[in-house]
């Protein structure tokens, strides 16, 4: 999650501003992941500049709206193909996440890329996303959680809030020793 919050999915439609010579320029539609509309528009122009000879000063945004996933009640496997700039070069990557919606998976992706590779959001480009059937899951970490009859205990952890206190992580000092063993 970036400072602007979790990622959202936007559909942005834009084109070159019409002139007398070209009264009806071609419109382009793009799916953009961004925490808000302002960043989504900015990203649209960033990608558009790379594909076609147009930019913000000579173009116009026709339409922008958020795409909200319909089924947000089931956990799904999402595969994400991306490209990112590391400190030494550009890499392509495929990653899998489990979440209720695509935006959640994308948010997880940005978090993980920041954690594992110190990658900032500006150097990540999402190439393709798709939901994946259980049989097609590739990554071992995801495979662990798609099997049938999965069950495991929670042997060692700290409770988030003990004896009516605030969560342990919210406290600088605490008088109660955390319990880490639960049945």
């Amino acid at each position, binding site marked *: 999650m970036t400072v602007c919050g979790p990622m959202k999915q936007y559909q942005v439609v834009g084109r070159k501003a019409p002139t007398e010579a070209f009264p009806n320029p071609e419109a382009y539609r793009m799916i953009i992941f961004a925490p808000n509309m302002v960043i989504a528009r900015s990203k649209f122009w960033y990608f558009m500049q790379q594909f076609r000879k147009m930019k913000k000063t000579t173009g116009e945004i026709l339409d922008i709206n958020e795409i909200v996933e319909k089924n947000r009640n089931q*956990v799904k496997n999402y595969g994400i193909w991306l490209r990112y700039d590391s400190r030494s070069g550009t890499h392509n990557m495929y990653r899998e996440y489990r979440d209720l919606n695509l935006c959640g998976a994308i948010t997880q992706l940005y978090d993980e890329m920041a954690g594992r590779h110190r990658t900032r959001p500006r150097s990540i480009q999402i190439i393709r996303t798709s939901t994946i059937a259980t049989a097609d899951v590739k990554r071992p*970490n995801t495979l662990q*959680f798609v099997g049938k009859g999965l069950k*495991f*205990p*929670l042997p060692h952890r700290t409770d988030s809030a003990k004896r009516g206190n605030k969560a342990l992580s919210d406290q600088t000092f605490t008088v109660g020793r955390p319990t880490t063993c*639960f049945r």
Partner: protein
Amino acid sequence: MVFTRFVEVGRVCMINYGKDKGKLATIVDIVDGNKCLIDGCNTGVARQIITFRRIALTDLTCEIGRGARAACIKAAWKKGGVAEAWAKSSWAKKLAAKAVRGNLSDFDRFKVMVARKQKSKIVAAKVKSM
């Protein structure tokens, strides 16, 4: 040590943090090593992904399939008698007693104090005679 409570589909858990604190919910799906999807259609908890830190597993389970819908969970609770089993558990009884104690008025607290004194008097007399 043998584990008896597992993170699994159908496990009834109690939320121990946030606005739904103290409410029961059912694990519907396991997302990853830190999170699971819960549904509290019986107790007014919204279907949501929650981290394991914020739930406590109970002894109870109900028979549902992975990613079951609210109606299925309700039916499974009814069939398994989950609500009744929970009410009978000492955990639930302790919580209920705690809630009752918390809502006592000043006068009620006085009455409890007097009753406790009487009780200890009886106990002390009995212990002395033994």
